[in-house]
């Protein structure tokens, strides 16, 4: 017998519950490993593979009457490390085959007498033809090329009207257009949702399926004790995940961190709690692990990736869908995280988003406790 001291001693019910829950997590090595490495893997994968940055724009030049001005602009384009000139032709006939073969991304077509028009100060048009089979990429490439043309025009001291210029985009807080900076806050949101909502939903419904919940219900434990005991360890895990994601983003991609780390961690805990409440609610409403898992994916993962601005900018969604995004907790958290990390702003700018998350938390927690009955359904 080795039952002295803590072995047989009395322990509070909640304390015992949290310890038991931590044991479940720690002993399921495979799941734990996946959960711990997930933020790292996602940051690296998203950072390297899914970035929207355009690095190699292949340009076809169509220059019917080469002169000093066209050659100067051509040199500027070819001198940019992001661009490569695949061909210089006299007529536009070459463009179509190049696009078809996928050998060029964009064509820059100079009008006849381009340099002459510029010198006289009369208006001239420059035609950009993009391969719009991938419209997002094409418009981004067009923007890149435009930027170069605009800077050439500016250097020549030509006013706007003379060379037709499409309105240019400016990324105020991400001047180098590094999409990884925008992705990291979104990834933190995604990982937090995954760990909190999905894992608690699975873990709670596992107790249902195993029948252990039946014993726990026939005990003096109150429903709130079961819920709190269940979610506390996942809150810890979520916290570890945020830190992993931040460190990975900083070490691998040098993502800036301009604001308060404490505020971001605090906001992450708030967001994690929303996810936990959602997970409990889903588990309370479903009757099997499988249903809980699918429910968690549909209710949390999909809206929080697709409707949160993580992958598609909210401004690019159709009008009727935009109000729906207000329901995705990640939409608000992403604004908070981007604000803190990239803009360095604090509570005075982000209080609205925090209020929304707090309200969501209260509503979801109340619903979770209500639907988690003290009896069987």
């Amino acid at each position, binding site marked *: *017998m080795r*039952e002295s001291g803590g*072995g*047989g*001693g*009395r*322990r*509070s*019910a909640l*304390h*015992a*519950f949290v*310890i*038991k829950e931590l*044991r*479940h997590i720690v*002993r*399921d090595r495979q799941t734990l490993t996946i959960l711990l490495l997930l933020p790292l893997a996602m940051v690296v994968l998203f950072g390297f593979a899914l970035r929207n940055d355009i690095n190699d724009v292949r340009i076809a030049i169509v220059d019917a009457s080469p002169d000093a001005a066209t050659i100067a602009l051509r040199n500027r384009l070819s001198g940019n490390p992001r661009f490569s000139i695949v061909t210089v032709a006299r007529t536009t006939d070459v463009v179509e085959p190049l696009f078809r073969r996928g050998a060029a991304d964009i064509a820059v077509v100079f009008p006849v007498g381009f340099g002459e028009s510029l010198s006289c100060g009369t208006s001239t048009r420059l035609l950009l033809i993009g391969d719009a089979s991938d419209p997002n990429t094409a418009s981004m490439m067009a923007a890149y090329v435009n930027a170069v043309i605009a800077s050439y025009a500016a250097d020549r001291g030509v006013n706007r009207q003379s060379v037709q210029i499409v309105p240019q985009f400016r990324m105020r807080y991400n001047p180098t257009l590094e999409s990884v900076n925008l992705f990291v806050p979104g990834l933190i949101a995604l990982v937090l949702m995954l760990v909190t909502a999905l894992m608690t939903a699975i873990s709670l419904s596992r107790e249902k399926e*195993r*029948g*252990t919940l*039946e*014993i*726990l*219900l*026939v*005990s*003096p*434990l109150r429903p709130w004790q079961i819920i709190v005991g269940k979610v506390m360890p996942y809150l810890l895990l979520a916290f570890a995940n945020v830190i992993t994601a931040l460190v990975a983003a900083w070490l691998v991609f040098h993502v800036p961190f301009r604001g308060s780390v404490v505020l971001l961690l605090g906001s992450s805990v708030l967001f994690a709690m929303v996810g936990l409440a959602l997970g409990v609610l889903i588990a309370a409403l479903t009757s099997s692990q499988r249903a809980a898992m699918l429910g968690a994916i549909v209710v949390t993962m999909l809206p929080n990736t697709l409707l949160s601005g993580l992958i598609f900018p909210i401004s690019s969604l159709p009008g009727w869908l935009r109000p729906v995004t207000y329901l995705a907790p990640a939409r608000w958290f992403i604004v908070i995280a981007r604000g803190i990390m990239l803009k360095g702003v604090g509570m005075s700018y982000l209080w609205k988003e925090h209020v929304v998350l707090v309200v969501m938390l209260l509503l979801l927690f109340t619903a979770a406790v209500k639907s988690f009955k*003290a*009896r*069987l359904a």
Partner: protein
Amino acid sequence: MSAQPLVVDAVTKRFDATVALDQVSFDMRPAELFGLVGPDGAGKTTLFRILTTLLVPDSGSATVLGLDVVKDLWAIRARVGYMPGRFSLYPDLSVEENLRFFASVFGTSIDEGREMIEPIYNQLEPFKDRRAGALSGGMKQKLALCCALVHRPDILFLDEPTTGVDAVSRREFWDLLDTFKASGLSILVSTAYMDEATRCDRVALMQQGHVLAVDRPSVIAARYPHPLLAVHATERHALLRILRSYPHVASVYPFGDKLHYSDSRTDPGVDAIAAEVRSFLATQNVSGVRVEPIAPNIEDAFMELMGAPEKLIQAAA
């Protein structure tokens, strides 16, 4: 406080169109080992869930330790031990961790519950660091019983505790129940095994939500109305068919490697009936025939009761 550990009064529970329990009534005496006996679907689990405050009856009432199962939810939960039908411990926790967890949940500790669980814990202790999932079926049941007892409950609810457990472990488990009963614990246990029913002080025979009879197993067996024969032959299937064609047959059903044959007549003595059946089987060219009069057991009684539930509910009432 009421001296009766359990009173069930006309409890009815429906799930949509199905009637799971229909006007179920019985009561338990202090320190009684009471059995709910019946096949799957008899309503035993539903009844357990009502008595452990997990479900609310549609009508009727029940008290556990004098406390109402609907109103006194939390008072009951602190004082009962419950072992649900499915194996319900955490397979990834060790024997000791499971036990300590359930002790803490009830605001107690292994040390404080030690005296109560001593008879089982002695058997479990050599395996206390083993994961519950790696235990044999019999040991799992003992651990579950231990967890249900560690907070020293006043009444124990065991829903089919021995289902899926080997014969030796089952006997050991029932020996343990005898031990706990002797220490004054009231135990309600359900089973689908008839041999286990005889180990209860009293049983309620249940079928499809009805209680067919409540009494001591021996009394229920003695109420069996027909002369009964155990019949053996080389070809059991043929024997079954031939016996069912016998004019005075009341019922024939397989029982182990034999058939139990009951006769619809009561006036000739059982030996005379045995002789008649023997000669009838001889005319039918059945080989290897052995016929002997036997005393009915509780399974015979249950088969009889199940055969005509409507008639017997009236008889019981």
